[in-house]
């Protein structure tokens, strides 16, 4: 017979003459005792120390002091990365090359395994050959390091799994336990969902059903990486968060927006909070407006079916663009810890949604027609493969956002993104106000207001524009720039965003990942626009030629406020 051990209970102390609950009628009602201060002494020792003017020291949680100051990136715990959608494009273009680079640079633990999950009937050898072919195509450093590849490929195994077959997940659980035993991966698992978004909820449900989410005592950690898009709109995002939340705790969930892993995006935080001179000028008193441009010269690159479902609003505005707005507009977090950082970002998103966008006046959509980009004639969007010839999907979106908080009240943030624009450029421009009193008023010599441009791609760098006197006897003022280019200061290759993010997820650092409430707040901003557009078909699509900067209406957004888009 099984014996259930009862938890020990502390003996109830006997109390002498407990105070009566109701005072006798001939005595005054005792005064209600003052609430006990939180830090009041609770034990005799604490009381004695308090009277002696000392405070009992509270045991601090022990920390591993040997970790302090180590310059090398911490090697993650032994673990298995379970890659769902392992035969797909994302896995081969991004995830597997990132893992290979991490391995090549000794940043993964020796006891590391990749369990690649896919529907195709591969065996280990054919899958590895497939991965090698992809690395030879997509690795950022070629040729491949033969020794590194050899040891890396030994750690890759393939498992065929039909996501709709529950029994497959039972055998997955068994397989993972076997790998733990054979390779010392200690039960630590990172589930990476590089699949179609429509499969996320089912996959998570299956993982929960077979108990692969459980972080039991001494059974290792369990984390899950989910690729964007996180939902299709606010409702679906909430639904997905709810489904994921039924199985995994929020602290186990890592939602990847790869933009946040880019070196220059991460440098935004260093630039803002690691330098003393910019932050005092980073507010409504000095900043006239902010422009963020994410321009792509490419089209939809054989992703017609995907793009038809998403469009520029869902593909870029809801995530990348709003993340950049957050990083520019957020208050300094108290610490560089994940939740502190994300709390501040959520505050920005809430401050944007507190004054909802008017789709008619604050947002513009566009779709490209045929045109010329980089001296090449390109077809219009409706002529792309897998695209409806009468498609109403937007390939361009521009918006005017306002952030209703103390720092940014009255400072518009103009954001725009589009496909088939004249060049590839991602840039944040902080346009400063004019000087309060124009000393140099004469026509032709009045200097432009200062501008700080943070280039994210290409030519990552930072440029500050200011006025300078032209040498000579006359007083001519001309705008000059101080230009910092990453490429010339640090001539070393930056890690790919996926390398940064996967390493962070393996180490349990969620700082650069998106939290559930962040996702929902971002959808809350974009959703009204998408809904309004869905209700009113665009009358003029296509409304911009490929190779131009979007529809004319987009130019009007800042022009209405007496401003204009920066010229690239």
């Amino acid at each position: 017979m099984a014996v259930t051990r009862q938890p020990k209970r502390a003996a109830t102390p006997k109390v002498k003459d407990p105070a009566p609950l109701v005072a006798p009628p001939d005595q005054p009602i005792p005064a209600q005792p003052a609430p006990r201060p939180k830090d009041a002494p609770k034990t005799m020792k604490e009381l004695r120390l308090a009277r002696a003017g000392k405070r009992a020291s509270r045991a601090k949680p022990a920390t591993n002091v040997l970790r302090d100051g180590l310059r090398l990136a911490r090697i993650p715990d032994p673990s298995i990365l379970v890659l769902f959608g392992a035969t797909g494009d994302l896995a081969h273009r991004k995830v597997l090359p990132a893992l290979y680079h991490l391995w090549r640079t000794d940043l993964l633990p020796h006891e590391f395994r990749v369990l690649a999950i896919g529907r195709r009937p591969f065996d280990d050898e054919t899958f590895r050959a497939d991965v090698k072919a992809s690395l030879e195509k997509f690795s950022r450093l070629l040729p491949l390091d033969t020794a590194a590849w050899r040891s890396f490929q030994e750690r890759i195994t393939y498992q065929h799994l039909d996501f709709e077959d529950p029994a497959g997940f039972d055998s997955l659980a068994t397989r993972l336990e076997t790998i733990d035993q054979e390779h010392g991966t200690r039960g630590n698992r990172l589930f990476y969902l590089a699949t179609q978004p429509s499969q996320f909820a089912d996959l998570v449900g299956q993982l929960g059903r077979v108990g692969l989410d459980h972080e039991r005592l001494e059974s290792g950690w369990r984390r899950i990486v989910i690729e964007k898009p996180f939902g299709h709109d606010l409702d679906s995002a909430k639904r997905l968060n709810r489904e994921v939340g039924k199985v995994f705790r929020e602290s186990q969930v890592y939602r990847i927006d790869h933009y946040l892993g880019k070196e220059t995006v991460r440098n935004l935080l260093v630039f803002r909070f690691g330098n003393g001179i910019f932050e005092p000028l980073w507010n409504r008193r000095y900043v006239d407006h902010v422009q963020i441009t994410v321009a792509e010269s490419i089209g939809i690159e054989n992703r017609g079916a995907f793009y038809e479902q998403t469009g520029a609003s869902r593909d870029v505005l809801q995530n990348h663009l709003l993340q950049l707005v957050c990083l520019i507009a957020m208050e300094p977090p108290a610490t560089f810890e994940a939740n502190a950082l994300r709390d501040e970002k959520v505050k920005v998103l809430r401050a944007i949604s507190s004054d909802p966008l008017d789709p008619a006046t604050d947002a513009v959509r566009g779709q490209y027609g045929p045109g010329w980009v980089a001296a090449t004639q390109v077809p219009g969007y409706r002529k792309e493969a897998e695209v409806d010839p009468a498609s109403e999907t937007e390939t361009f979106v521009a918006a005017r956002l306002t952030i209703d908080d103390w720092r940014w009240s009255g400072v518009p943030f103009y954001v725009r993104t589009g496909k088939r624009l004249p060049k590839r450029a991602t840039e944040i421009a902080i346009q400063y106000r004019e000087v309060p009193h124009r000393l140099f008023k004469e026509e032709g010599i009045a200097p432009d207001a200062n501008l700080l441009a943070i280039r994210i791609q290409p030519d990552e760098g930072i440029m500050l524009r200011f006025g300078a006197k032209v040498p000579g006897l006359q007083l001519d003022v001309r705008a000059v720039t101080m230009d910092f280019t990453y490429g010339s200061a640090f001539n070393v290759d930056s890690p790919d965003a996926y390398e940064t993010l996967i390493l962070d997820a393996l180490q349990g650092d969620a700082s650069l990942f998106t939290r559930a409430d962040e996702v929902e707040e971002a959808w809350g901003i974009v959703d009204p626009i998408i809904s309004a557009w869905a209700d009113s078909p665009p009358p003029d699509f296509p409304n911009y030629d490929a190779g131009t900067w979007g529809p004319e209406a987009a130019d009007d957004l800042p022009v209405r406020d007496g401003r204009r888009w920066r010229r690239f």
Partner: protein
Amino acid sequence: MTVEAPIKIGEPVLRWSARAHSIAEIESELARIWSGQDLTATIDGEPGRHIPARTSVMNLVVVARRPELAERCAATMQLLTGRHPSRTIVINSADPDGPSWFNARVEAHCIVPREDAPETCAETIHVTCGGEAGLHLAAIATPLIVHDLPVTVWWPGEPPLMTRSARDLLDGADRLIVDGSSWTGDGLARLREMARLVETSDLAVSDFALARQSRWREAIASIFDDQDFLPYLRSLRRIAVTYSTHDETGAPGSTNLVKPVYHVGWLASRLGLSVHKPLAPVTGHGHGHGHGAARAARSVMSRGVAATLSDGRGEVAVVVRPVASQTPAGTTLRVELLAERRGSELRADVTAEAETVHVRVWQDGVEAMERHFRAPRRTEVELLAEAIESGRRDPVAVGALRSAAAIIGPAGSGA
């Protein structure tokens, strides 16, 4: 003069070379490089555009006392690909007792790091001097330094840290790069001098000997990431470091001890251990418990040096002992830790196996953890690249150095 050389992506090419015989001539050649119209290239389809100097970042002064050392340093710097300082000054002084002379070669090396990146250039000034001129290093380096940029001094070989010439040069420097594992003897006297230098100045120090062991530190730290083992960290009772020696006696002073002592210094500094007794040779019989000839043969090997540290509650025994091995002399082969807590014992054994660090842990005699960390030997190029791009003082390095010096003890003590 301009040097015509084809551009190769990722490889620095010599674009300018000139001779000079005085500091003034060097300055004038430097000015010619950047103000003249000679050093131009076609960039972004725009011909004749001037090649920009590297935007930042630092001056590097290399003090190479021997010509072969200067050549080796130059070769190392060539391999820094894309991480060159803005200006490198290589000083090779010779024949201090002869007449004074001064020769210099001014070069501009340019690199296109990637297809889509602009070409940038860095300057190298090779100074060869003799006699009295070569004794005043600061007088050579200071006028050639790009002001407002940090100055790093790389001093391969044996830096005479306490000499006037070295102190003058280092007074104007932000960082000193050395390789403690290349010092002669046990290297501990110079380590003590370097600690004193760090205590009495704001100089940051990068020692390749310490940097090479970073993966060891990661491996040792990883043991205590485990919450079950973390409480033992404050209850260490024994630290034993085994190192390789090529000397058949392993006698103190015969092998460089800088790397093994750094391990103890790092642990002591992180754990706040104080020195109860500094390092001193272990006396008594050698290892082995046999009798007769066998015992005599085994006891030839020294038992190393030992120290006693304290964590305020108890003593921590330290032993640094040699083992004959084919690996380079002074290489750490094993770090053993013993911790005792409330009647429970934790033993950790960290060993090097080829390019791997192997960690094994036993809790009360039961094996509780095993991990491997890949630790390929880092080249001088990698170490130099890391050192010149370091920022301010690294508290781990300062702490390890300071504690190592305390463990070695004052001059004239045992070790």
